[in-house]
Structures are given as structure tokens and as C-alpha cells.
């Protein structure tokens, strides 16, 4: 646990007036406040530092104690005891605020050691606050999100049975209302936000509701036409190949793509690209026949 220079954090010198501290705090808080920097962990951490610095320097009693013991903070308690703890630092156990509120911050070990607990935020008596929101990430396989399924999650010790609709996207966030932390003083509960991280281990590529796949097509079928069986995401389907099908031909299989999110029974499309394979390890007879063919069509087209 290291000493924290609160003056440095607020970019102030030790002679800063109360007004200077207020101005410096507000300037930096506006820059780094989590409300203004959503999903930015660096800003959140910086804001916590700024808030903690302000918590100490804007409070004359705390500032006095901080200035008095400063780097010698480890012995502060000892010194305090020696002074018979003439007064306790009351009023620091303020109302806990809602998510990202000023009353709800993680304080450093240094702060806790010196001042013993979290600081208070802007509060008005028995203020009702909405509970803190929770954020969670759920890792799923693409196969998992092909069908609607139920899953039990444990969030902050509580089990939540969740229905995950088919077709959720990688990176998509859903809100589960009321499953965040409990509200303060009868305020409503916060919400739970779940972000899905969907990994794809299949041979299909996904773009929204559409799937893409490349299928090998042998030369003879491509030239003469025929039938092939191909894999769809949940089975197999027979395809007719037209004679003289060029390499790279794309076909659309309507309704064989991925389920459309929250639209039961609706599916995107599957796009197949044919990739011609050249025969290898030809026998002498095959070589003869290809040679004969090449004589018939010298340009090969």
C-alpha cells in the first residue's frame, strides 16, 4: 500500500484554497466521470482517484489529518490513539448512491487505512436511490445461439434463470430489469446487463442472419452438372448443379441461414460459394483423355 499524493492527482499545490480544490475537482471530474465515458475502465479508475482526492482535500478535517501525517500515514493511527482519539471522523458513512454515483466508489487501501471507510456522496437525508447496475459477459458458442435455450447464471451469489433467444449477436447486450443490486432506502433495484460473446467454431461464417459457406465442387460435376449434398447449419440439403458451372459461383439457399432474433420461425439465408477442385494423381488413361480433350479445345475455354 503506497502513499497517494492527492494534491498531485488534482493537479494542485499544497497551498490550494477550498475554491481551487472545488474548481480542479469539477474540471477533472467532468473529463473523467463514468457517466461521460461509458465503458471506459481507464476513465473510471481515474475518476475514482479524483473522487478520493476530493473526498479528502475538500473536507477540512480530513485534509488537516492528511496534511499532518502525509507520508507518515502508517503511524497515523498510533498518533491518533496517543491523542486519545479526541474526536471521531463522523459523517463519512454517507448514503450509498446508484450506479456510478459519487456516493458509490471504491476507495483505495490508503484511504481506508487513514480514514476508515467509504466517503459520502451528495445525499439528501433518507434519499431513495436506484440500485447499482451489474454488467456480466456470457460466453456462448454459435451453435448455442442457433436455438432458444435457458441457462442459469449466478450473479453476485444469486441464481438467475435466463431465456436466451435464438439469434443473439456477438457483442449484443441485453438488459434484465431489476436484477442489479437492491435499491437504497426502498429505491428500485438496478438492472443486469449481459453482453454476449459468441465464438464460432463452425465452417460457416455469420453476418447478421445470413450464413456463408464454401463448398468443394469436383471438375466433372462442375462441367457436366449433377447433384451434391451440402451441409447446412442444422442438417444436409441436396443441390442440383447446372452443367458448366464456373468456379466461384454463388447460390442462395433461402431460409437456411441463422434464426432472426426474437422472430420465431424466421431465418436468414445461406450463401454457398462453389470452389472447383482439380483432379490429382491422374492415371495414364485419364491423362490421355484430358490430352484428347485439350486438342478439341486448345484454349481450354
Amino acid at each position: 500500500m503506497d502513499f497517494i499524493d492527492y494534491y498531485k492527482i488534482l493537479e494542485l499545490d499544497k497551498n490550494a484554497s477550498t475554491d481551487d480544490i472545488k474548481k480542479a475537482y469539477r474540471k477533472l471530474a467532468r473529463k473523467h466521470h463514468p457517466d461521460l465515458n461509458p465503458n471506459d475502465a481507464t476513465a473510471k479508475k481515474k475518476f475514482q482517484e479524483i473522487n478520493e482526492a476530493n473526498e479528502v482535500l475538500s473536507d477540512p478535517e480530513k485534509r488537516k489529518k492528511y496534511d499532518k501525517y502525509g507520508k507518515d500515514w502508517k503511524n497515523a493511527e498510533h498518533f491518533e490513539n496517543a491523542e486519545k482519539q479526541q474526536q471521531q471522523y463522523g459523517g463519512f458513512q454517507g448514503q450509498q448512491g446508484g450506479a456510478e454515483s459519487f456516493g458509490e466508489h471504491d476507495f483505495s487501501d490508503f484511504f481506508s487505512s487513514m480514514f476508515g471507510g467509504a466517503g459520502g456522496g451528495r445525499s439528501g437525508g433518507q434519499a431513495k436511490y436506484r440500485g447499482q447496475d451489474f454488467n456480466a459477459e456470457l460466453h456462448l458458442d454459435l451453435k448455442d445461439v442457433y436455438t432458444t435455450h435457458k441457462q442459469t447464471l449466478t450473479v453476485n451469489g444469486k441464481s438467475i434463470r435466463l431465456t436466451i433467444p435464438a439469434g443473439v449477436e456477438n457483442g449484443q447486450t441485453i438488459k434484465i430489469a431489476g436484477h442489479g443490486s437492491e435499491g437504497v432506502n426502498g429505491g428500485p433495484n438496478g438492472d443486469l446487463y449481459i453482453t454476449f460473446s459468441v465464438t464460432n467454431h463452425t465452417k460457416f461464417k455469420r453476418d447478421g442472419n445470413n450464413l456463408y459457406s464454401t463448398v468443394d465442387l469436383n471438375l466433372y460435376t462442375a462441367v457436366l452438372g449433377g447433384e451434391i449434398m451440402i451441409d447446412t447449419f442444422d442438417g444436409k440439403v441436396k443441390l442440383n448443379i447446372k452443367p458448366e458451372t464456373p468456379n466461384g459461383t454463388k447460390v442462395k439457399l433461402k431460409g437456411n441461414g441463422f434464426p432472426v432474433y426474437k422472430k420465431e420461425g424466421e431465418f436468414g439465408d445461406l450463401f454457398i460459394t462453389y470452389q472447383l477442385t482439380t483432379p490429382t494423381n491422374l492415371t495414364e488413361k485419364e491423362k490421355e483423355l484430358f490430352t484428347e480433350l485439350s486438342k478439341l479445345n486448345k484454349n481450354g475455354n
Partner: protein
Amino acid sequence: METDNLISVQQFCIHHNVEFAFINSLNEYGLIEVTTVEETQYIYKGQLKDLEKMIRMHYELDINIEGIDAISHLLNRVDDLHTELTSLKNKLRLYENE
């Protein structure tokens, strides 16, 4: 009309220690929606998260209503761009490892 999903503005102002005029200004700027049921003004519970955020901006960061309005638009824009970025990242996967 059911008021289960509504919070009385008066109660909200008392509990959060904010002036009614502030809520009224947010309503006038279209940042929240205040509804009246039997002569009592309410806000929707679903707006609470945004409303508390706006209260923090105003009372703790000293940002005026015009600033909150601008910030709200920009945050919505950030949110849209974030969604677009996620969608583009997913699309990019189509061309990776080809």
C-alpha cells in the same frame, strides 16, 4: 390509469433533494417525459437511470441543462457508434482467415 411504472415527481424531488424546476426543465428540453395522471405528475421508472445520470451531471459536475442536452445527444451518438462498431467487427470476421 395504472401508476405501477410511474414515480411521482414530487416524491422523486424530495427523495433526491432536487428542485422541481430542474425536472421541469429536463421535460421541456425533451430529455425526460413527464406524464400527468389525475393532476399528479409522474416520471416513468424506465427513465430513472438516465434521470439520475442527469442529476449527477447537474448537481455534481455543475453542468447546465443546455450542456446536459448536448451531452445526452453525444452519448446517444456514442452508443449508436458502439453498436455500429460491434456490427462492423462481426462483419470483418467474414473476411478473416480466408
